[in-house]
């Protein structure tokens, strides 16, 4: 498809009105790229992330380097956003036919295929279609194979293949019976200990979100320095992902959950059933458990680590990888004297710091005050912790939009497409074994679209659709 730049009058006018100050990162870049490539997969669902051009801002990948070399080379740096936005379309057009990462696919082809033109290992790898009849006499490698899927469901969700006898029974079914057997197998296995028990699949999905550390675990089987009990976090996660429950409650629940049997969990209100101290009206699911504050906030007045972990774990946006950098309007303030205003730091901190402000009113490691909401917490630190901490606001920003507090943060996060994508991606990786490829993207997007509508945020409903994708059921 020939490259045809579109009119940029709209975005340029908006940029001129906004007139932000010069920074190293170029927030207009992704939107300009999408003006030129509106049908690129990354543009159909939002904006491309910074790794399209950058390694870690301000560092650039080969595509970013190529742009930088051709972008107003005679003009002193840093460029204004307006100058950058005016020059970028022409540079992108000039580079469309080049293969800057040397992977054999030109930049325009890569952008339209949804692969990165600056990373050679990421290139269009569409699955070749079947030519003629499947040459496999046993599996249907050219279409959905119900037996193949049925066996995989047993392994992925129950942990074990079916027995030989069960397989013979399945083979005796007609196509309608086999369809039903897929759902039956999935429903049966979703109640198994392999799926929802201690260290089962759901626990394994939760490990990176919870980041447990036995040495400071409290409660049953706790360590030598008990600070908080992460079993409550695993239980809450499992609860929200099972049965007919709303997965958004992982971020919005006002309750806690206890595991009371290998595959049984019960909802509880708080103490004495669980050792949690956050006030009921200030709870936000896994964002406000004692463990989350202990392991992330610890003693920090501006809990950037806490916010970054929440952003990464539940919204799939890793600021350390330059993902989800959407700074809100306004000036960044260095409340705790950490030097975040330096250009190389501000690239991320313009997003991260406002993301963290709503977490700043919850105590970290603080005995029976762990996780307690305290609107004056920022005033209880010494000046040595930050000369402007008394001015630290509770209100912050998520996705560049203002949030008044952590309750608001959690609600907006739970309603976001990023949350849906992150949730489905977790299960996709378990069932399919890798990130969605270019060839699988359409099926992944269909799951994303249905999760908030047809599936009503229920994970198990979504899984019934996932096992019917070609990505899962075509050998």
């Amino acid at each position, binding site marked *: 498809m020939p490259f045809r730049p579109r009119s940029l009058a709209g975005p340029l006018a908006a940029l001129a009105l906004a007139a932000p100050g010069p920074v190293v990162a170029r927030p207009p870049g992704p939107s300009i790229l999408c003006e030129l490539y509106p049908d690129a997969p990354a543009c159909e669902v939002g904006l491309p992330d910074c790794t399209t051009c950058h390694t870690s801002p301000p560092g650039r990948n080969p595509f970013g380097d190529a742009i930088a070399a051709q972008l107003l080379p005679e003009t002193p740096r840093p460029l204004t956003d307006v100058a950058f936005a005016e020059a970028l379309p022409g540079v992108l057009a000039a580079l469309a036919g080049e293969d800057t990462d040397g992977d054999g696919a030109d930049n325009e082809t890569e952008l339209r295929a949804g692969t990165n033109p600056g990373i050679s290992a990421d290139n269009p790898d569409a*699955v*070749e*279609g*079947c030519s003629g009849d*499947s*040459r*496999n*006499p*046993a*599996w249907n*490698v*050219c279409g959905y194979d119900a*037996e193949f899927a049925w*066996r*995989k469901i047993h*392994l992925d969700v*129950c*942990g*074990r*293949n*079916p*027995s*030989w006898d069960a*397989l013979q029974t399945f*083979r005796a079914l007609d196509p309608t019976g086999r369809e039903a057997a897929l759902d039956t197998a999935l429903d049966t296995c979703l109640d198994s200990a*392999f799926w929802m028990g201690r*260290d089962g*699949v759901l626990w*394994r*999905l939760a*490990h*990176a979100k*919870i*980041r*447990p*550390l*036995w*040495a400071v*675990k409290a409660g049953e089987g706790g360590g030598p320095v008990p600070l908080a009990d992460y079993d409550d976090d695993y239980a809450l996660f499992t609860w929200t992902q099972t049965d007919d429950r709303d997965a958004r409650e992982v971020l919005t629940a006002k309750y806690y959950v206890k595991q009371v049997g290998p595959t049984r969990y019960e909802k509880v209100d708080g103490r004495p059933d669980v050792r949690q101290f956050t006030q009921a009206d200030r709870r936000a699911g896994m964002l406000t458990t004692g463990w989350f504050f202990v392991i992330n906030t610890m003693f920090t007045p501006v809990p950037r680590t806490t916010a970054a972990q929440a952003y990464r774990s539940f919204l799939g946006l890793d600021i350390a990888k330059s993902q989800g950098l959407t700074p809100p309007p306004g000036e960044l303030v260095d409340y705790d004297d950490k030097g975040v205003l330096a250009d190389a730091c501000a690239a991320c901190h313009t997003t991260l710091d406002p993301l963290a402000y709503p977490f700043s009113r919850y105590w970290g490691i603080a005995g029976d005050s762990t996780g307690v909401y305290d609107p004056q917490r920022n005033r209880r630190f010494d000046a040595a912790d930050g000369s402007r901490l008394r001015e630290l606001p509770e209100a912050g920003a998520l996705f560049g939009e203002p949030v008044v507090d952590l309750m608001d943060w959690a609600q907006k996060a739970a309603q976001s497409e990023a949350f849906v994508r992150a949730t489905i*991606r*977790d299960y996709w*990786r*378990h069932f*399919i*074994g*890798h*990130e969605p490829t270019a060839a699988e993207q359409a099926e992944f997007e269909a799951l994303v679209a249905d999760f908030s509508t047809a599936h009503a945020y229920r994970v198990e409903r979504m899984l019934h659709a996932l096992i019917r994708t070609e*990505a899962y059921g*075509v*050998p």
Partner: protein
Amino acid sequence: MACLVAALTGCGGGSSGDGGGDPAPDASANGGMPAPGGAPGPIGGGGGSTPVGGTPIDGGAIVPVGGGEPPPENFEATRANLRFKGAARLREDFGRILQLPTDALCKELGLYDCVTEIHQIALGGVEPYKANIFVPFPGVAVGAPLAVERLALSGCGERVRRDRATPDAAVFFGRLPVDAAGALSTIDAPEVDAALTRLFREALLREPTRADLDVVKGLYADVVAEGGPEPARTWATLACTTVLTTTEALLF
């Protein structure tokens, strides 16, 4: 254990991402698939999983015991998405195949569970609580073949011990024609074929081919040549281990 080495050393990169995926072998472009019943291949490759790195132990005819059309040597798959089962699935599935509780499969020093306590990481699992390994390492660890073999050998040894102790409740090897010296009266006895057929059905969910049976039965001559005690028991353990460590059994 050529079959095991072939199965796992052929597994290259294939990162599983950062969310609890599984170590992924580097399937070849035309991605071989394990064959279901009616279209099997020989142990260690052939119709089973040749493109992943298996080398057929024998070059005999690939014909199901029950007859039927021999399949092509390599199967094509558009998705080519073969994965190593990894720690959790292997433990569960070996327990099912051998009809043993998972905690009876294998214990190091008789104390520590081979999978959950000792070889978890080598088998592509995680150890979040003390080692802070929250997601599996990409690819397959160099120690994975040894860990898989350890698990299979131990589990098969326990299965054979129980089968010999209570033949009426045996799963696979209760009816072998064994003499007073612990040797098979003949490896070609129908009871041997019956035991192996049950093993293939449960482990690989397919019927064995004649070539499969010949390869596994051929082990018996090697066992006898080694001159150890109770060759029937040793052979049964190794036959079981051989089948459980094929590419077909380890990948899905």
